[in-house]
């Protein structure tokens, strides 16, 4: 009792999901709604950015999730390759589309914020570019899942792609940093400090910080609920396919 590997059993996993899905989803909804309402209506406008600053309540959580979802996929892919638990591979598959949407939300809210503040929808800033590349990685990953018929081969190949992709994604991050400095020497308009994760803790005052934390917690719980639900759906889908195949045999 107590080992996490017990949940590698699809039946046990489904049962546990059924028990926890509703509470997690409800908590996610409460945290997100409280965080957003608090952030949008009960915090003062920033003295320089005005009310546009409030988009951080969507932008920062989604950007955080976009990166962490890929990281979660990396961990589950490794578990699949090492221990061959199907639930793990299916969880990675289930998480990828959520990751794409989070990346899109981060890019979109960033553009909406950048239009009035930087005067442009898009700039080839290192951070923006990295997210665009991350978006491409997600697309490739999902496309590979869709393209392969045999589920085990698909799980294997996408897991390797995820691992190799992670290495290249980090490499791209540093390459892009270098590339931009190389092109725009001394440019300072792109100093996007206001919305970055590290600056949030250092610079953003507590008035903004607490509702932001609330939103982040909400997004994390929302993601957990979605992945649990989608993984269970994948398990059911596979089960249905197996039953149908068995029926055809009989």
């Amino acid at each position, binding site marked *: 009792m107590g080992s996490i590997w017990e949940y590698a059993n699809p039946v046990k996993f489904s049962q546990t999901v059924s028990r926890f899905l509703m509470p997690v989803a409800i908590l996610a909804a409460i945290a997100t709604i409280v965080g957003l309402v608090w952030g949008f209506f009960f915090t003062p406008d920033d003295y320089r950015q005005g009310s546009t600053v409030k988009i951080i309540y969507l932008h920062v959580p989604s950007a955080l999730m976009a990166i962490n979802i890929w990281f979660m996929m990396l961990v589950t892919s490794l578990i699949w390759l090492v221990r061959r638990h199907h639930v793990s591979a299916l969880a990675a598959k289930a998480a990828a589309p959520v990751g794409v949407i989070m990346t899109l939300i981060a890019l979109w809210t960033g553009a909406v914020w950048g239009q009035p503040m930087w005067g442009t929808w898009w700039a080839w800033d290192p951070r923006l570019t990295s997210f665009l*590349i991350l978006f*491409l*990685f997600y*697309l*490739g990953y999902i*496309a*590979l899942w869709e*393209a*392969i018929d045999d589920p085990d*081969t698909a799980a*294997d*190949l996408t897991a*390797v*792609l995820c*691992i*190799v*992709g992670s290495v*290249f*994604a980090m*490499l*791209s991050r*540093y*390459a*892009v940093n*270098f*590339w931009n400095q*190389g092109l725009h020497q001394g440019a300072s308009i792109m100093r996007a400090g206001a919305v970055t994760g590290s600056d949030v803790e250092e610079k953003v005052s507590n008035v903004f910080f607490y509702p932001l934390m609330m939103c982040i917690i909400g997004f994390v719980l929302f993601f957990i609920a979605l992945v649990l639900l989608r993984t269970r759906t994948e398990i059911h889908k596979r089960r249905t396919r197996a039953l149908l195949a068995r029926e055809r045999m009989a």
Partner: protein
Amino acid sequence: MKALLFRDLKLAFRAGGGFGLGIAFFLIVVILVPFSVGPESGLLTKIAPGVLWLGALLACLLSLDRILALDWEDGTLDLVATSPLPLEGVVTVKALAHWLTTGVPLVVAAPVFGVLLNLPPQGFVWLVTSLALGTPALSVIGTFGAALTVGIKRGGLLLSLLILPLYVPTLIFGAELARRGAEGQDITTPLFMLAGITFGVIALLPFASALVLRMNLR
């Protein structure tokens, strides 16, 4: 392994092997660029390193699905896999053959195309260096992509989608090296970074390619 290499080279050079295709594609890209951005020589000088790198990368990409797909279809790959050769060695040889038939001609032809795009004289050395150093990485990464998608019918487009993000670091440092060389700036950092990527990729990625190929052959 030597036999395998010579076999791949022979297949590529014979008619229908697609040996000249990559270079012809490269030429067309280079010719089309002035049509699309205008014949201004100052502008061409400025974008020449980037365009040449992009052209080389696309030409490389074009021939990737030939690395393994044909051998997969006619069953050669199964035979090779059951032979005592380690699969890691096989994919390395495949990447080497691809580089010899695609990368090397691109490197040789690049200076000529540089003239077409009005590349400044001091840029040629670094253009050739960057391509010579960078194209092996393109071949090795491409072989990984080819191994991933080998079991998929008409996987060419998917291959491009998977490989292009992986090409980003190589492209950035390669083009940066060529650009800095052309503008007479300090080239140490991109040179070392590009070399690091290429050698790192050659050392590590064949293992991933072989692993993926084994999964596909199962």
